């Protein structure tokens, strides 16, 4: 019941907004926060329901084998929580900045949130493709929302590459359907090992290419820096923090369920993509002059970290990847919100012109520093802990290339983040002296506080065992198949 509502409530609020705008625009100012809050609470509820045991929701009363089924297990509940916080923060930021003027933005925002919950919950391959299409279209539109020529060009390039990626996923789903004549993921997972090897290869390649193209892994990442840097602040925080993670979730779900034992070499491909994105992202980020492009390339690199975790294919690997996705959402959304707000206030995005910003906007720059320290991997913060678990996972699989890449990535990311921070802290010419408005500071402060808390948590509470348990549950497909099909 909760799972269906988590998708249907934001969807229906997206349908309601035009009516409110046309016939009762006074009500819009009241309804929007309610809808935003409702979507946030319902997504968290769906996450909570799925954490302990499998939570199922059958559509139309049909059993899993016939109709579509929503499955919430440990893996999807962590990503649901991630989506809830990310969307909540961006919604708050945009609502505080623009109010209810651009009501069409909210329609697309709620559609994006609904379809994201749909992808994270669905247990059916074609249904995942449909929801995937919705949130991709919504993402293309949000990127080109500001209608500046950069945003429109970035939106078009994102659309063309994203659609090519979507067609590869459609092809993969089609091949899976041809071989087994069913599209329910559990039924597919059961019948994948008996499939001829040639088809298996095609499905694996299509799925990996499609999802890593959407996630922005290295050879396919070219749209990401343009899209994330030319979008408005709320959207780039949303894209980098949350939208990219949903593709990672689908990659994890598909590669674990289908290719866990049928085609283990898929995980080596994912690791190689991860290492490539890590090196490429950091190298490109180290020469950027525009702060938002720097953060966008840093996202490509962090996606590389996550894919290395996934590529290990072990319980600790998946746990490290999931933990790092959550951390990265906190860090990157916070960084984009603070950097974006600073860039908007001083009307320039060039790092060199931001000299001496610390002495004029102390709160925002402090939050930026904590978040940057976290993303580089300075010990007490959560970035370090997730990097530590990634190293443990890669050492467990004896893949030293990945471990050394992680270390190399830390070193390079330290070099360019410190370059930015040193510009902030050198005393420079006077900007207009004023502190950003309350809510934005609150969001930034909340995110940096979460970074510190999550960094220290693994020392005092068994939070890491929780994640390893999520990873191991995601790994054993037999349990998933039994839970979905037999009930």
């Amino acid at each position, binding site marked *: 019941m909760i799972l269906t509502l988590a998708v249907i409530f934001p969807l229906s609020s997206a349908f309601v907004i035009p009516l409110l705008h046309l016939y009762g625009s006074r009500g819009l100012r009241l309804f929007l926060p309610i809808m935003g809050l409702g979507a946030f609470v319902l997504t968290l509820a769906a996450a909570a329901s799925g954490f302990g045991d499998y939570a199922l929701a059958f559509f139309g009363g049909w059993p899993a084998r016939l109709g579509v089924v929503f499955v919430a297990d440990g893996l999807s509940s962590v990503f649901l929580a991630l989506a809830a916080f990310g969307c909540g923060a961006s919604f708050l930021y945009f609502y505080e900045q623009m109010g209810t003027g651009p009501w069409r933005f909210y329609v697309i925002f709620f559609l994006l949130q609904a379809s994201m919950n749909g992808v994270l919950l669905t247990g059916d391959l074609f249904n995942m493709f449909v929801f995937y299409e919705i949130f991709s279209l919504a993402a293309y539109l949000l990127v080109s929302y500001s209608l500046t*020529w950069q945003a429109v060009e*970035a939106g*078009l390039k994102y659309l063309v590459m994203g659609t090519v990626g979507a067609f590869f996923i459609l092809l993969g789903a*089609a091949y899976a359907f*041809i071989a087994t004549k069913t599209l329910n993921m559990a039924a597919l997972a059961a019948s994948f090992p008996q499939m001829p090897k040639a088809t298996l290869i095609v499905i694996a390649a299509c799925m990996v290419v499609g999802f890593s193209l959407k996630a922005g892994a290295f050879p396919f990442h070219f749209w990401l820096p343009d899209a994330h840097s030319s979008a408005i602040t709320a959207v780039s925080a949303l894209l980098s923090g949350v939208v990219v993670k949903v593709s990672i979730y689908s990659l994890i779900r598909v590669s674990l369920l289908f290719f866990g034992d049928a085609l283990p070499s898929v995980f080596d491909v994912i690791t190689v993509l991860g290492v490539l994105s890590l090196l490429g992202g950091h190298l490109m980020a180290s020469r950027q002059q525009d702060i938002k492009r720097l953060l966008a390339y840093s996202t490509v690199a962090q996606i590389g970290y996550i894919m290395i975790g996934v590529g290990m294919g072990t319980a600790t690997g998946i746990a490290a990847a999931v933990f790092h996705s959550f951390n990265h959402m906190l860090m990157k959304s916070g960084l984009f919100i603070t950097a974006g707000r600073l860039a908007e206030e001083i009307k320039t995005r060039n790092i060199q012109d931001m000299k001496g910003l610390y002495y004029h906007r102390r709160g925002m720059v402090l939050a930026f520093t904590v978040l940057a320290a976290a993303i580089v991997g300075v010990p007490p913060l959560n970035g370090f802990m997730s990097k530590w678990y990634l190293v443990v996972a890669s050492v467990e699989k004896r893949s030293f290339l990945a471990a050394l890449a992680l270390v190399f990535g830390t070193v390079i990311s330290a070099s360019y983040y410190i370059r930015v921070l040193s510009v902030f802290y050198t005393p420079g010419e006077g900007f207009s002296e004023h502190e950003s408005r309350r809510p934005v500071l609150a969001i930034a402060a909340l995110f940096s506080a979460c970074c510190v808390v999550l960094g220290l948590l693994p020392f005092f509470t068994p939070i890491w065992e929780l994640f390893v348990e999520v990873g191991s549950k995601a790994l054993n497909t037999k349990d998933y198949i039994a839970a979905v099909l037999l009930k």
Partner: protein
Amino acid sequence: MIKISYATAIFVFCIGLYTILSKRNLFKTVIGLTIMESGALMLIVTAGYVHGGVPPLIPMEGQAVNPLPHAFTLTAIVIGASDVALALALVIKVHRRYKTVDLDKIRGLKE
């Protein structure tokens, strides 16, 4: 019969991919998207075809064709159509700024 349609579907998919890669005109890219999408559709529909099949309507005489891919293709066609509509809207906007639809001139956002 089924193998021929599979071959055509894959060939059409490759033509679409080739159009996107090789042509410099933005409209040709969007045309390539449509062609690629139609290739994928044809692949899904032929997945459900059974020799000597009959359309899946209740008063069926003989073995009916598998109706499941038809539902997916319906959805995929409409998804493709909305993709193309959005792509064309963005193409118009890009044309407004660059005054051209030549892809090699639309390189404002570099490294």
